[in-house]
């Protein structure tokens, strides 16, 4: 088994934003990755951090591909299928690039910090200067590298800015333990101020927990 692990270790390379999420996760913890796609992050966490990892994914094709790789994934919807889990069932609940596609993001965030002792949330920032420029200058819905679809066919129905998200966290009494941004080149940046992060961060990434939890 040691040999297998070192073999996998050499092979695992994941996207920068996923690596940032993985770096926040403690080894051997319990993790639920919501909207896990075909399980790239989950696979990394299971093999590199020895977590007890589960995934939830809306697309059946993604689920089947992930399970065929030996991952624990269920077909499910962040909007409807989180209620069943007991409180504090996981050490981390991850919602990467999915919040903006949920029908009720406020309820989803509440659920994340209920079923996870910590939640890790990342989303495209609609307050980024390029988005503002496109909307302000062209008068049309912005299309960017991280948001390439048209307004009528995008699954992203609830865009928000970093400022909006931070307001929601305050409203829900959710504590931000860690905040960072990812710039246009995919590099992580420090979260020096809300205003600056909201202008320069293409994505926001947050480690959350319920206050007093």
């Amino acid at each position, binding site marked *: *088994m040691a040999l*297998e692990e070192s073999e996998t270790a050499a092979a695992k390379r994941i996207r920068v934003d996923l690596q940032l999420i993985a770096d926040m996760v403690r080894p051997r913890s*319990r993790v639920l990755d919501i909207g896990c796609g075909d399980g790239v992050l989950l696979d990394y966490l299971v093999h590199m951090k020895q977590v*007890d990892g*589960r995934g939830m994914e809306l697309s*059946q094709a993604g*689920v*089947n591909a992930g*399970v*065929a*790789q*030996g*991952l*624990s*994934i*269920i*077909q*499910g919807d962040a909007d409807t*299928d989180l209620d*069943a*889990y*007991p409180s504090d*069932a*996981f050490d981390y609940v991850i919602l990467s690039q999915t919040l903006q596609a949920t029908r009720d993001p406020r309820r989803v965030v509440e659920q994340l910090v209920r079923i996870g002792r910590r939640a890790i949330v990342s989303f495209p920032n609609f307050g980024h200067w390029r988005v503002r420029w496109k909307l302000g200058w062209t008068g049309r819905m912005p299309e960017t590298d991280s948001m390439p679809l048209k307004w009528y066919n995008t699954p992203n129905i609830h865009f928000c800015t970093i400022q909006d998200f931070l307001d929601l966290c305050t409203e829900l009494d959710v504590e931000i333990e860690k905040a960072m941004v990812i710039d246009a080149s995919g590099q992580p940046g420090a979260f020096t101020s809300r205003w600056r992060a909201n202008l320069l961060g293409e994505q926001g990434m947050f480690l959350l927990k319920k206050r007093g939890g």
Partner: protein
Amino acid sequence: MSSQSSQFTGIRPEFPGLRLSFGSDQPLQLDSGASLAPFTIAYQTYGALNREKSNAILICHALTGDQFVADKHPITGKPGWWEAMIGPGKPIDTNRFFIICSNVIGSCLGSTGPSDINAATGKPYGLGFPVITIADMVRAQALLIDHLGIEQLFAVIGGSMGGMQVLQWAAAYPERVFAAMPIACAARHSAQNIAFHEVGRQAITADPEWRNGEYLAQGTSPARGLAVARMAAHITYLSEAALHRKFGRNLQDRAKVTYGFDADFQVESYLRHQGSIFVDRFDANSYLYITRAMDYFDLAAEQGGQLALAFKDTKTRFCLVSFTSDWLFPTSESRAVVHALNACAANVSFVEINSDKGHDAFLLDEPEFTAVMKGFIDGCAWHRGIR
């Protein structure tokens, strides 16, 4: 084959394979309060048990299935019912795992059932056989696993009624099941499914040759009734799309309809054939008893209706599988089990396979299902440290 006389008239045939027998002093306690003694469990094994005894997989068969999961069937001569899945280099790899499959009690392929001689009367049990449940079947299997010296099964896998047994194993013996794969099944038998079973049972008991269950002693055979039961059930194993693809409205060996009640349509001829070959390999009373066991299955019932309590604190790794066109055990049934397992924060995978082949899809060649089976087993083997 239909011209042959049934195997289940007159003398009980001897089938090949392994046997574990318990004497009159070791009764099997049943849910009904009755007990069964003496009794025998017929089983087959494939591959080798490793030194740690950590690589055993129990396969649970469906209603009319048997222990010959990867062997030629002793009556029909057909390949084992899951040879596509089990064998060297296959998803359930006999080079790696020790595979066990036992005939459920109440059945008729070697394990004690209603066609066996009741020691108390010297005649076949017939309706004197006690009513059995899925939990009773599993209790008997557990005795076999004890006998084989296996503390914990690496996996318990089964489809349809086999899937019910998998769920029962996971609920009753959580620490003895490392991984569980319930396929195309439910945690409780639905009203619709009980209704279909009742039609089958009525067909059998309405056959005058059934003789109140004593046909073996009286030398008759309720073959017509059993065949009708099989025909009705067989429809539920398929889908509208599969039937249409296979037969459409095609006529059987004729150019036009005959304005009579012969099998004008291919689908009629097919069903008649399915019915007639079934009676050669299955006992009518076993059919009554095993359908009853499925009807009674309701895992949540003894937990006050809360299915999650049946799996509380489970460490077992689950993978549930359903098929899109299965209307006998639809995806919603598997999803209900998944929600219950989520409520205990269990380690669970859930896959719905796109197939138009209906309930029977789990027995057929479905590449995506095969890939999921292999992925789940390999992943669990990695976690269990099995090479």
